[in-house]
């Protein structure tokens, strides 16, 4: 007997599902008649979407002045919301690309869902750079479009890098998501009974036949896109952080920003996935697929990234002191004790303290507690962006310029309105597309490994690997 023993992972899909039952579980959501509560939820989401459209319409009609921005604080809620939504998007790509490359099979339960969240969050995020400028009608000048003025954008500007980074990220995420969807769209096409569904699922399934060649191409494409998306997870928020880090404002001009922003993004993204997952799996009865084990794994990631963020907060303070730059020192002291101390301590409580509860297994496996913390984390991450954006601008070099920023109702409505965009899209996704990657999840079932699966007993007996005893002289 070897001293190394193979300990099988707990089953990723609970509840004795076979291939057919899984397919049915997932596709039923899309194929059965629309349930009434869905309409209610969609109506509510549309109402918020309406709020967004009104708020943006008013903004475009009257000018940026409807927001609370003013002289020292040129960026407020719009930029905070932008960074926050982009950050949320990160979890999806991390789950689908990085965990795929690391062969973390548990990702298959949530990757579709998380990727959809990514795309919708990035759409919400992209609203803000578009609308926050003073002259919205010439926003296209940020793109390097050849024009009669012979003017290129300023390639030195981090805002321009942002344009490229976020648009690339959005494109790759969308493609990755779509490629992953193709086999499932074909499944839906085959199961659909009415013409419209058959046609539209069929159209997007690109004539998928499930042939070996199709699978071969699919796997390659998926692998390549995962490879492309992986650096993007790191680059997007790095470049978003450059908006701040490349400037010379104390509290912004910090080299720690790229890793710290990425950690924060993953932190908030996982929290958002959990928030959505806990609700969705309950409503759609997907507890067998999105299990408490998934939740626990994600909670551990939240705990780790939360601690990284907390470490970054402390390093900021340390470096401010260690640098000896008085403006740098002043801004960090002002953050903790100044006019925005309330925001700072909300941030610290939500982001640093709250994830520490997940050291306790009981808490990280508790659905209710996880849901609560996932909300708290996203509040905390919103405040992190608030603290970074607003406090630095409000209290920079010359004390004569210092002023206190407060949002207006239109700032709030615009933010609230983006939830309308997000949930409108998300509800449509839940209704019309398979929320779980059916083809992929089947691959992690024991049945997918026919050599070690006993059809009759429905038991999985993994092959025991004999590892020879190492010989003393060779060690």
């Amino acid at each position, binding site marked *: 007997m070897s001293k190394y023993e193979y300990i099988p992972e707990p089953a990723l899909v609970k509840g004795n599902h076979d291939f057919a039952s899984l397919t049915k579980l997932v596709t039923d959501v899309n194929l059965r008649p629309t349930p009434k509560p869905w309409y209610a939820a969609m109506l509510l989401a549309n109402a918020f979407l309406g709020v967004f459209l009104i708020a943006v319409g008013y903004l475009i009609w009257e000018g940026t002045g409807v927001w609370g921005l003013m002289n020292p604080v*040129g960026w407020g809620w719009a930029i905070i919301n932008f960074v926050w939504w982009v950050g949320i998007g990160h979890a999806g790509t991390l789950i689908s690309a990085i965990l795929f490359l690391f062969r973390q099979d548990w990702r298959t339960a949530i990757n579709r869902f998380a990727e959809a969240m990514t795309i919708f969050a990035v759409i919400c995020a992209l609203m803000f750079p578009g609308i926050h400028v*003073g*002259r919205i009608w010439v926003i296209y000048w940020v793109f390097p479009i050849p024009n009669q003025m012979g*003017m290129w954008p300023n390639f030195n500007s*981090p805002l321009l890098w942002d344009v490229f980074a976020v648009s690339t990220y959005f494109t790759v995420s969308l493609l990755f998501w779509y490629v992953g969807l193709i086999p499932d769209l074909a499944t839906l096409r085959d199961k659909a009974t009415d013409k419209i569904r058959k046609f539209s699922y069929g159209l997007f399934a690109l004539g998928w036949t499930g042939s070996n060649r199709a699978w071969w191409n699919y796997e390659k494409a998926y692998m390549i896109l995962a490879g492309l998306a992986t650096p993007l997870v790191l680059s997007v928020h790095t470049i978003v952080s450059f908006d701040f880090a490349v400037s010379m404002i104390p509290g912004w001009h910090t080299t720690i920003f790229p890793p710290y922003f990425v950690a924060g993004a993953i932190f908030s993204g996982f929290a958002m996935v959990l928030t959505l997952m806990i609700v969705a799996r309950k409503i759609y009865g997907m507890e067998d697929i999105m299990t408490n084990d998934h939740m626990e794994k994600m909670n551990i990631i939240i705990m780790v990234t939360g601690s990284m963020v907390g470490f970054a907060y402390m390093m900021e303070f340390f470096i401010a002191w260690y640098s000896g730059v008085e403006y740098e020192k002043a801004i960090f002291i002002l953050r903790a004790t100044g006019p925005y101390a309330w925001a700072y301590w909300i941030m610290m409580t939500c982001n640093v303290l709250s994830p520490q509860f997940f050291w306790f297994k009981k808490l990280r496996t508790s659905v209710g507690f996880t849901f609560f913390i996932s909300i708290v984390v996203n509040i905390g991450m919103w405040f992190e962006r608030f603290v970074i954006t607003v406090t630095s601008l409000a209290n920079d070099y*010359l004390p*004569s310029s210092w002023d206190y920023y407060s949002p207006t*109702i239109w700032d709030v409505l615009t933010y609230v309105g983006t939830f309308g965009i997000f949930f409108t899209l998300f509800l449509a996704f839940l209704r019309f597309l398979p929320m779980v990657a059916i083809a992929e999840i089947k691959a992690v079932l024991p049945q997918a490994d026919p050599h070690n699966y006993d059809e009759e007993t429905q038991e999985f007996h993994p092959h025991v690997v004999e590892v020879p005893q190492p010989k003393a002289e060779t060690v």
Partner: protein
Amino acid sequence: MSEVTQNTYWKSLNELAQNQEYQKFVEREFPENATELNDGVSRRGFLRVMGASIALAGLAACRRPVQKILPYSKQPEDVVPGIPLHYATAMPFLGNLTGLVIENHEGRPTKVEGNELHPASQGNTNVYQQATMLEMYDPDRSKYPLKNGKKVSSNDFVVFAQEFFADQNKKVAFISEANSSPTYTALKEGALRKFRNSSWVTYEPFGENNAIEGNLIAFGRRLRTHYNYSNADIVVSLDDDFLAATHPNNVEYAKQVTGRRKVTSTKDSMNRIYAVENGFTLTGSYADHRLRVKASEISAFANALAGALSSRINGLNAFSSVNNKFTGEKFLTVLADDLASNAGRSAVSIGLAHSAQAHAVVSAINYALKNVGSTVNYKEVPSFDNQDNNKAFADVVAGMKAGKYDAVVIVGANPSLTAPADLDFAGALKNTSQVIHLGTYVDETAKQASWHVSRSHFLEAWGDGFSFGGARSVIQPQILPLHDSLSEIELLNVITYGEKVSGYELVQNTFKGYYGGNFENRWKDVLHDGVDILDGYKTASVRLSSSLKPASTSSVDGIEVVIRPDASVYDGRFANLGWLQELPDPMTKITWDNVALMSPHTAEELGVESEDLISVTVNGTSVEIPAWVQPGHADGSVTLTVGYGRTGIGRVADVTVDSSELLGGSETQGGVNTYPLRKNSGLFSAGSISSTGGTLKIACVQDHHSLEGRDMYRQSSLAHYLENPDYASFLKQHTYEVPGLEEAKEKGEEKPITLFDPQLYPDSEPQWGMAIDLNSCFGCGVCIIACQSENNIPVIGKKEVSRGREMHWIRNDRYYVGDVDSPQSVHQPVPCMHCELAPCEQVCPVAATTHSEDGMNQMTYNRCIGTRYCANNCPFKVRRFNFFNYPKEYLTTGDDPDIIQMAMNPEVTVRFRGVMEKCTYCVQRVNRAKIDSKIKNGTPRPEDGAVVTACQQACPADAIYFGDLTDENSEVSKMKRNERNYLMLEELNVRPRTSYIAKLTNPNPALVEETNQELAH
């Protein structure tokens, strides 16, 4: 060409007639009516009167004055469109003229500048003079005479006056503003001769009557005290804010006082300024030593000073027995020593509002110090009345109350608002059947008058007069009257002689009397120069009265309520000028409102904080006004300013509740009328304060008043400077060198290393730079208004200012240094620094802000998309964003459109919503000079001094230097070589082109420990 473009520029009446709006106007029987005008704030109302106003403005724009006026210094063969002409004129304020030069674009005056030849200006101006341009174009100005509130024409008035004033036995009371005009004085004498039973009062709510009466006590004659601070080594101000625009001669005095503080090397000396005052004034903040005492104790201080001096110098024996709380105090003793040892080279002054007796004491001190003839001159002023005008005014009001007069003629003044409340002027006026009022606005007095006559603005009427010191000028109009108005001399001529004679003729007649045979040439000269003789007032030789006694004192034990003119709106006459309303108060930085200033200690005792509403009660009359804590204010004293809380004056002045949808929410704007608390007895009265519980949001542009130990403002005492000439350097301030400098020096470079490639500047181009001398700047804020006028900066209103969106391109930061009760206050003007490695340029995604070859950081409005990243990344926070379409509100729908548009500088773009803007170093002036130089000398490098920025031009302290840095002999290069020259935030290595010359103070060594300390109570 589209119709719109055709209508944009009117060149002739015919062209204007094609304007549809004008045609509508012609078709209407009545262009506008009074009710529409009076229902001020609704936007619909504006739109209704808009059509008519376009027509009026259009007509006006074509009205070049028909009389011959001569260009000041540039005399082109013909008017070249786009090339402005400059004409000399002068602005009367409290009767005293300050010489101005007006920039005139094709017959449309747009910008006020100082007249270098005029002694009261010497090329510079104050805030009122800068803002007067807006006054002329104020769409709310009185546009036509009113008879009992109904629109009539000025000819109707002439017909009425001819008939009414034909009877020489009419008892007429004339109440006139101060006016030094010889033409006016002659007309006054004529009127008094004609109407034998009449009375004449010169009434100014904050005039110099007490100063004149003080000289009567001291010297037996009514004389003007005219200081010459150029000769003064020691300047003592007893509550006399002679540096502020509220003083009738502030530009000349500022020029003199700051001129004595120009330190270019360790060889130079400085004057020493002592200020004793209750509030924190500009003079107090500029002083080397400041003592805060209650206003009611100033006369006691003057007595004690005379008493202390009596043992040191001759001639003050009458004061040797003075013994009050100040006697023996260290501040007083040291001051007396300093004065005595600088006899003949010192100047003591006291605020105009203080009692005549106190003025007499100060005159005696100056006399005894042998300052007369050196630093102080007493002038005989022909326009002075031979009476105590305070008393005469009270008598006339009593007469009016008794129904003694057949008519009251009020020229310019607004006594229904400004007269001391205990006289009840408004009530007395009701007992006179014919009240004739000449005024710029349909103000409180105009509303009571049976005849209100619109007054011509001085920029549209002929006039004459003397400066405070006696320089004689002709007021030359820049444009034909915009409205159906009369000037003061035209009105008085109609009343006295029954004839409507043009002001031109009246003034010419006066000057024909002066010039005799050589009239034509000398007339041309006076129009060209703006001034003819400098000594129009004779200097009196004075002898101190032997019966002089110490001033009687009436100190207030409890809370004293001090009422002063406002820095922005003065006595209320400038209340409708948005530029002034939005100009931050030089000390409090408050815009749009008046407040009750009090010391932190008093506020604590009363249990109130800034913005808390308090009720101020004097003799049973109460006014509710927000409190404001003013560090450095005297305890037990509350200072109020007047001129606010108006109704029915104009859209800017009126108290309004702003609830426009554009801004959201509502906010009260317009301040509080504090005149009901003002008593005839003088400057201060005993009062009481109680908190009312409410609050009012105040739009203050600076929230943080401490330097936080940072080094953006650097100063030292003169003595320290002499030993450490480079005290202001980064090394001396920090004990270590600018980061990166040592590494750069190893590489043989002068400036700290940078990641960026410094821009290359071609040799052919000049390199612009600015230096601001903090030792000269006393914080008046005229640079802000001059910049606003030059660069078409919009007025945005209280709500927007209180949101922190002020648009001024140059701001004046005011910091307090030292303890909260009696701090030092310092002023620092901050325009764009035009950094060579500008952080704003790096971050703009569309390259809308870039560097020019002559080293300026430029803003391309057309390219700007409004990300505001540049403003965020500006360490100096000088960039301003058009959050709304401010110019649209300001120049079209929000106001009577074309009239106000005429005040705009055609050389500067009016910025649209959503773009960033900031100081351009007056690029339009720079480029004009470069083009001129290129034509004339073939080089784009103008001679030094050819480019004068608007802020530099206006500054009475000459604190701003601007020029070519590649020219080693330019003034700015010399200033930048000064060892006190430093860069703000130098360690950021953005390499600003604007630098500062560190401040120096000149404290008395004997008082160093005591600097700015309060006397123990």
